[in-house]
């Protein structure tokens, strides 16, 4: 039984104590009719507000649904899309699917790690970027794929990574025009 938490170095400063609005959490649970079967949806809704699942929110959910905290914590940690740590402003996902891998997708992920200075699963100290890897985003024909905040960049190679991150920083990700321009370069 492991009692100590292993946290990657440099991440402690990112774990802030966030103010959790109890009413919000209760409302979310109510929207899903207090049904334990809707736990995944409840956690998903909480994460869309706070960018992660704060400890306090899970305790409230346990109280409201009647599920044990052990079970809720188990579910929260089982699924990859839930994060127990706050995420940065921009979520960068590198696809590690087989088709992308065959086209050197792993190199793209490494290049992103190098340029952001963090490992996959971590958030930059300035809380701008969180880097994740995903096992297939489902756009396999035009891989390797990188998404930033849900916007897809296709046929990426290591030379385009810098450009993608710059685009993310300046938040020009609303329309497809910039996407097409990035892919054409």
């Amino acid at each position, binding site marked *: *039984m*492991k*009692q*100590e*938490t292993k946290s990657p170095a440099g991440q402690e400063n990112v774990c802030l104590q966030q103010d959790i609005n109890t009413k919000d959490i209760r409302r979310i649970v109510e929207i899903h009719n207090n049904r334990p079967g809707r736990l995944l949806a409840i956690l998903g809704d909480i994460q869309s507000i706070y960018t992660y699942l704060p*400890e306090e929110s*899970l305790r409230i959910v346990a109280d409201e649904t009647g599920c*044990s*905290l*052990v*079970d*809720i*914590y*188990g579910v929260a*940690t*089982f699924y990859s899309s839930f994060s127990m740590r706050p995420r940065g402003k921009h979520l960068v996902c590198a696809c590690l699917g087989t088709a992308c891998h065959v086209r050197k997708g792993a190199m793209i992920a490494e290049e992103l790690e190098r340029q952001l200075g963090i490992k996959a699963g971590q958030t930059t100290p300035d809380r701008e970027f969180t880097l994740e890897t995903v096992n297939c985003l489902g756009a396999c024909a035009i891989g390797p794929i990188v998404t930033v905040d849900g916007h897809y960049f296709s046929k990426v190679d290591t030379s385009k990574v810098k450009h993608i991150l710059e685009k993310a920083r300046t938040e020009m990700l609303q329309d497809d025009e910039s996407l097409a321009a990035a892919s054409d370069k």
Partner: protein
Amino acid sequence: MVNLVINGLHVSVERGTTLLEAAKFLGFPIPTLCHIDGLSPYGACRLCVVEIGEDSNAKLVSSCTYPAEEGLKVRTASSRVLRARKMILELLLASCPQSKVIQDLASAHGIRQQRFKQEHDDCILCGLCVRMCEEQMMAKAIGFRNRGQKRTIGTPFDIKSEVCRLCGGCMYVCPACQLRCTYNEPEKAICGGCANLTPPCVEKEQFDDMMCYMDPCVACEIKKD
């Protein structure tokens, strides 16, 4: 009543009986690790696998969880089963060599070596502690977290549990941490089959309360040859 055939012998059992219970009834030994009477079966360790079915439909299932079915043909020690058990024990030794329970099982099956990179885990994730805490002690203070290679057992958020009553039940049932091989008690030592593993005298930093009881150490003697 359900009628089935185990190792060629016909037996009739009540509906709901598992293959493990039925085999025990007939006196066929099946090794187990994550099973204990009094707690619900889990089927995690896979050591209790038996072969069911015939020809191309034959497959291995964990006998502790599989319910007896009408007309089922079961073999508790076919070559496929034995091959599986041996490999599972090698994997167990490779993860948790200091557990006496695992060493005894390995020795009983004639495992003299393990060919993987040696690890020293405290836990094989058999889930006995989780089930003990939930079913016997009604506390549910610990549970499984994460998944795959990262799966562990612990309290939520790894902090002191509010519902844990410090009963020690989890440690009592644990095959890995409670029942370490006690080399300094000759009566409890196993046959010396651990000689091919890394001798504890070399690994002293890992487990410094482990003492070699033999003088000179048989492990060192054998390794010298």
